């Protein structure tokens, strides 16, 4: 691979993990993926430094950043997105936000239908179809409300909720072809040139908040 091939740093903390991958052209130069429930905010940057050190690449040589925008743990996606925004601003390079649903489906055999499914609290899931017969847009819903009509021949179900969703549909659970950070770097590599909006977390759900409950008193001489 010529050294002029673009150098893309991908990272993701949207699930119970912390992952970083450095891509030069089509090749993964160095990568790390650690499972962790918490501590990503402390681990992410040291891991980025380790991946760069292992590859011998300088941060300043990066052409773009790919960052996982979830959906997933709200705090987790903000950790990576904020980090990416800081790096993008200081390095003067674009940061490309990539959904974890798309990242999980990355690397599936060409043309094969993939249903990406991610776990969410309270028996909910996030799903999105790629190359499926029916158009399955990004959706957040209870697991048991996924339409059985999504099942089709050769459908591979990937993602953190793959086992449950595959069982529900009677389909096949498949492991994701790549770690999230690598997949995110690969997708970012196809998109970083041109207009790139700043990466933003994918929430799907509004913040849990109830309007103030206690009503104010009646003001007697209000006209």
């Amino acid at each position, binding site marked *: 691979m010529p050294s002029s091939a673009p150098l893309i740093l991908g990272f993701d903390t949207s699930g119970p993990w912390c992952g970083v991958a450095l891509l030069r052209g089509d090749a993964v130069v160095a990568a790390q993926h650690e499972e962790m429930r918490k501590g990503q905010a402390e681990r992410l940057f040291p891991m980025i430094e380790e991946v760069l050190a292992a590859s011998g690449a300088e*941060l300043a040589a990066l052409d773009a950043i790919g960052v996982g925008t979830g959906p997933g743990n709200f705090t987790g996606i903000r950790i990576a997105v904020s980090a990416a925004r800081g790096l993008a601003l200081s390095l003067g390079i674009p940061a490309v936000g990539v959904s974890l649903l798309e990242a999980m489906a990355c690397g599936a055999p060409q043309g094969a239908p993939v249903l990406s499914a991610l776990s969410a609290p309270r028996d909910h899931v996030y799903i999105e179809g790629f190359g499926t017969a029916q158009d399955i847009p990004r959706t957040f819903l209870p697991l048991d409300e996924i339409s059985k009509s999504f099942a089709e021949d050769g459908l591979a179900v990937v993602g953190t909720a793959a086992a449950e969703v595959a069982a529900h549909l009677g389909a096949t659970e498949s492991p994701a072809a790549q770690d999230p950070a690598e997949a995110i770097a690969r997708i970012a590599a196809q998109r970083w040139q041109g207009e790139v909006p700043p990466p933003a977390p994918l929430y799907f759900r509004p913040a849990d908040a109830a309007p103030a409950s206690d009503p*104010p008193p009646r003001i007697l001489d209000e006209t």
Partner: protein
Amino acid sequence: MAEHFRILGIESSCDDSAASVVEGRPGAARVLSSIVEGQASLHAAFGGVVPEIAARAHAERLDGCVMRALDAAELTLRDVDAVAVTAGPGLIGGVMSGVMLAKGLALGAGKPLLGVNHLAGHALTPRLTDGLTYPYLMLLVSGGHCQFLLVKGPDAFSRLGGTIDDAPGEAFDKTARLLGLPQPGGPSVETEAAKGDPRRFRLPRPLLGKSGCDMSFSGLKTALLRARDSICAESGGLTRQDRADLCAAFQAAVSDVLVEKSRRALATYLELQPSQPALAVAGGVAANAAIRTALERLCESASVRFVAPPLSLCTDNAAMIAYAGLEMFQAGGRADMSLTARPRWPLDASQTPMLGSGKKGAKA
């Protein structure tokens, strides 16, 4: 002669996204730019700051604030000597966004990173605005905090006392809600209080009978609620005059407590025989003119200088974080890339925690 530094500061611990550049040396620095993007409209419907809403806004706004602060100072990241960020205490989602952004900025630009305690930012502000010399007495009184601090150095704080429950700013907000006044409560309660009679309703002055500088404000809220409800039960509602009188009574009670506890804190402080004695206030409640006047009068009688930074540097802002960072940087402080965002981080670790305990540790 200390060197001059330029520090970029970032603040996101509550509902203000802020960035600033400060230049100078400890005790002689100036604000080159200070950008604050508030979120009042986002939280208005909920009667208080919603942490998740705040965190979402910070994550997508802070980098813009940094760009605007650098532009306003006519600088680039290359021109600053270090990046200082609030690393706590505060709403953790927002603090974490700030810390991660700052790490990215520092690593990408090859600049040192500084993790600043938000309370230290407030406590050191009189050094930025008025060049106060150590030691001085600080009354930090805001929506989230209320404490007396002896400030003896950039990293040497002794807490003389503080609230054992709510902060006065919270009590002002709650009072406004109870009386159907708009948020934030501070200014709206103050405006009404100016039209009211503080003697019509007698509200308690909690902990005034106890020695020391500790305070309590949650009982005051309850007393106000009872007074409101008894009027409503009698007349089916409040007149505007009732409301103004309640506001005046509430404000007078807060003011009396703050003044009396300040008197005690001053006595302890003056035992240090400071060469240039000063009491500084910070936090949004310091903007209340009645409270400010009462504290000024107290200082005058004690021959102590009274310092209240301009409101823009009294309420949450990033210039105070940049300045506190400047003092830390001068003293050789550096954070590494594993810097942790802390929801709780008492300034004076030697004291028994006042609020919060258990595995999360002390809040303040």
